[in-house]
């Protein structure tokens, strides 16, 4: 199939790999495509060199994304995207490193790696696309599946409590944490730009739609219905501060939740340590 790449209006078409087959592998209406568009347009607005930028991913629907984008990319084992990205950043501190990961990839099998990347405060941007279910493997319950929600492995409703990835990252020591939904596209693009510019570990949690499994099993409707639900249930952080916890149940608090510019970055600290050790050796 020949891919017709237009140069006119949408700059993101220039960033797609011409050898990849399009349309993409995702289901019709999947939010991954919207996040991919936001990511590419954010990088284009920031003006980064695409050869000096690494995009790392693990396993899952979301982790198919770097294959379509014309950056240096690394497709790694399940849950281990952040350790690989740590290695890339450590070897090449001048490189911009972004990790695109899903909720099962980052919080279930890679949960340990996730909190330790937050703790080290290494200069990586993690875009965590949260669709509340394991989409690729057939709709099993993930750590973010809400209590009472149905999935293939919880046919009578989930009895477990779910992770809040943003609060987990703040507690573990990340220095930029934000949440957006796929409906709120301008905020999402702006937040990815802020996160890429931030020095330190930054997490952007994107609430996305999996209407094929989560929407179908929980009677949420198709992609349009789920995006409308995000529109109705999203609350900005400034408004959420005036609301009670009972009012905030089943709402998505969006916006920049936490920024800390004072914490030192891991690569800087390590290079200082190298200088000290080399002087002592002489």
């Amino acid at each position, binding site marked *: *199939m020949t891919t*017709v790449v*237009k140069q*006119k*209006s*949408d700059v*993101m*078409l220039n960033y*797609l790999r011409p050898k990849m087959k*399009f*349309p*993409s592998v*995702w*289901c*019709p*209406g*999947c*939010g*991954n*495509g*919207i996040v991919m*568009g*936001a990511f590419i*347009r954010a990088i284009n607005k920031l003006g980064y060199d695409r050869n000096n930028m690494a995009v790392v991913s693990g396993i899952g629907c979301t982790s198919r994304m770097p294959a379509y984008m014309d950056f240096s990319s690394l497709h790694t084992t399940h849950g281990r995207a952040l350790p690989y990205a740590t290695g890339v950043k450590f070897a090449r501190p001048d490189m911009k490193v972004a990790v695109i990961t899903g909720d099962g990839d980052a919080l279930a099998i890679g949960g340990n790696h996730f909190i330790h990347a937050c703790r080290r405060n290494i200069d990586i941007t993690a875009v965590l696309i949260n669709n509340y279910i394991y989409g690729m493997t057939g709709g099993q319950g993930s750590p973010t599946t809400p209590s009472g929600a149905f999935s293939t492995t919880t046919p009578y409703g989930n009895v477990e409590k779910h992770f809040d990835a943003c609060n987990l990252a703040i507690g573990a020591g990340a220095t930029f944490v934000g949440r957006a939904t*796929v*409906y709120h*596209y301008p905020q999402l*693009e702006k937040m990815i730009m802020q996160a890429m510019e931030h020095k330190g570990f930054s997490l952007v949690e994107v609430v996305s739609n999996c209407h094929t499994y989560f929407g179908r099993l929980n009677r949420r409707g*198709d*992609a*349009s219905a789920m*995006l*409308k639900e995000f529109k109705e249930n999203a609350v900005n952080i400034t408004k959420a501060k005036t609301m009670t916890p009972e009012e905030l149940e089943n709402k998505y608090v969006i916006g920049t939740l936490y920024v800390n510019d004072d914490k030192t970055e891991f690569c800087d600290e390590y290079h200082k340590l190298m200088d000290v050790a080399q002087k002592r050796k002489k």
Partner: protein
Amino acid sequence: MTETNQIDESRSRSKPQSKYDYSKGPLPLEINLEWCKACGLCITLCPKQVFETDRNAKPVQARPENCTQCTICWVHCPDFAITSNYK
């Protein structure tokens, strides 16, 4: 493709509110129907009801004079099928 599109006139605005004049040039948007998967997001999210569906549930620009180039349809298109001819 012999069926004609039935345009619901009640959804159409009485006056075109766009500052762009599409009568001379091409249509406001270009839709890559090869990449389109007919998810319906552009049709639902368009605030000016520019689109209608064809027989494959893919979008057609039924009311191009309403389009204000607000970019909502093409930033929300998960398959990068919509681009603008004017912006």
